């Protein structure tokens, strides 16, 4: 059977059929894989929070490894003693909720664990002048109470985000950064250990107790990062905009937690 493939009607029918077939194949793939993907993303969040707390499988100096997938749920339960949600607006904490209170609250939580709070959505809410939720995870590190905070910002190509662990004086105890699409070998290096480890010990406040943030600085003459009270870490070569993005998100997002930490003292 010879078909005249040059006819307009054939072309249109072919295009329609193609769209329907490809569309259904993709829809089927996406919907059947969705539960597995969601589960993976939840595990990843827990791994990232634990990583920022210093609970990870890192060995030596090079690679970053997380708590094993199978052990994540248990590790998260034992190490994160409390999940707190802060409702903030205009630099003030309106409400402090425990995990249970948040999950029961009708408007937002509705059974959702605080670690699953979508930071992007919350940032949009804040931009529209509404109050936003800030997740905060309490745990202990070397016998000291530490708090894991969440940050999210813009890199060169796409979103960057992370978790920063602070003690009650807002000194960084650990950090984890990740990105959606920074350049491999350049901006993507924010996920390398030598960069994340540099944040340990950096102070977010200056001596007078004013919030200063941490700058990812070029040519700060301290590549080994021995000076911890200069609020600077050494930048990544060839990744200026990603580095600036990290500085900006730390400054913008961690400042929101400031009233909570001021109250701790």
């Amino acid at each position, binding site marked *: 059977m010879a*078909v005249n*493939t*040059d006819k307009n009607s*054939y*072309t249109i029918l*072919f*295009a329609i059929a*193609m*769209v329907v077939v*490809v569309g259904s*194949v*993709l829809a089927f*793939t*996406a919907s059947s*894989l969705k539960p*597995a*993907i969601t589960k*993976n993303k939840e*595990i*990843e969040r827990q791994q990232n929070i634990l990583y920022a707390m210093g609970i990870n499988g890192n060995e030596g100096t*090079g*690679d970053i490894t997380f708590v094993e997938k199978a052990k994540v749920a248990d590790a998260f339960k034992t190490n994160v003693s409390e999940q707190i949600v802060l409702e903030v607006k205009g630099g003030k904490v309106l409400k402090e909720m425990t995990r249970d209170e948040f999950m029961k609250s009708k408007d937002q939580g509705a059974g959702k664990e605080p670690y699953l709070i979508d930071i992007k959505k919350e940032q949009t809410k804040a931009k529209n002048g509404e109050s936003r939720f800030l997740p905060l995870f309490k745990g202990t590190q070397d016998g000291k109470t530490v708090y894991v905070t969440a940050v999210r910002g813009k890199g060169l*190509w796409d979103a960057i985000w992370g978790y920063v662990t602070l003690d009650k004086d807002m000194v960084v105890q650990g950090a984890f950064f990740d*990105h*959606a*699409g920074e*350049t*491999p*070998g*350049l901006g993507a290096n924010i996920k390398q250990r030598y960069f994340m480890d540099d944040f340990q010990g950096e102070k977010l406040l200056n001596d007078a107790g004013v919030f200063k943030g941490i700058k990812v600085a070029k040519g700060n003459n301290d*590549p*080994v990062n021995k000076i911890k009270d200069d609020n600077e870490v050494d930048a990544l*070569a*060839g990744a200026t905009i990603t580095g600036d993005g990290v500085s900006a998100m730390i400054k913008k997002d961690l400042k929101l937690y400031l009233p909570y930490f001021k109250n701790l003292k």
Partner: protein
Amino acid sequence: MGLLSKKDAKLITDPLADNNPITIQVLGICSALAITAELKASLVMGIAVLFVLGVGNVVISLMRNIIPSKIRIIVQLIVVAALVIIVDQVLKAFAYDLSKTLSVFIGLIITNCIIMGRFEAFALANKPWQSFLDGIGNALGYAVILVIVGFFRELLGSGTLFGIPVLGDPIEMTGVYALGYENNGFMLMPPMALIIVGLIIWVQRSRNKDLIED
């Protein structure tokens, strides 16, 4: 008779050297510039392209007699895009860690000229088995160049291979760094990939004079 006839085997071996998609056909340069700062990324990109080009070539070849010529480029694009999305989703579901490493590269496959080039030049006119071999051969030829470029860029730019330090520690000044060597940051910049590809083309053509065009 072996598994492959002489003509079939040529479909695989030709693109590895004498008809290499990057150095001879000068296709796929964009992704070669973008992702070769690390050896691991180069390798992973090579594997992903191997899958997409292998399967895509077969799909296009199977449909070659029913595709209307007026919209064949669009059809080819849809096939690539669909395959890339499927690869991405499957990786996210079953190999999440790997999908994190791949991140941008998977999306970059859609823009890879080699794939459209092979669909257009080979799969539209040949049988599925030959198209499959052609796809595999070209993807391998692409991967070889990517790995070579990635090897030099990562070694000279960061002093590591697959993320493992091989030249010593630049901060503690051990290994070759003790002799005064410094990592060449320029190697991590995209233009260096172009220069390395240029050097490979130069070496290849000076060894095989037949490749030089008049």
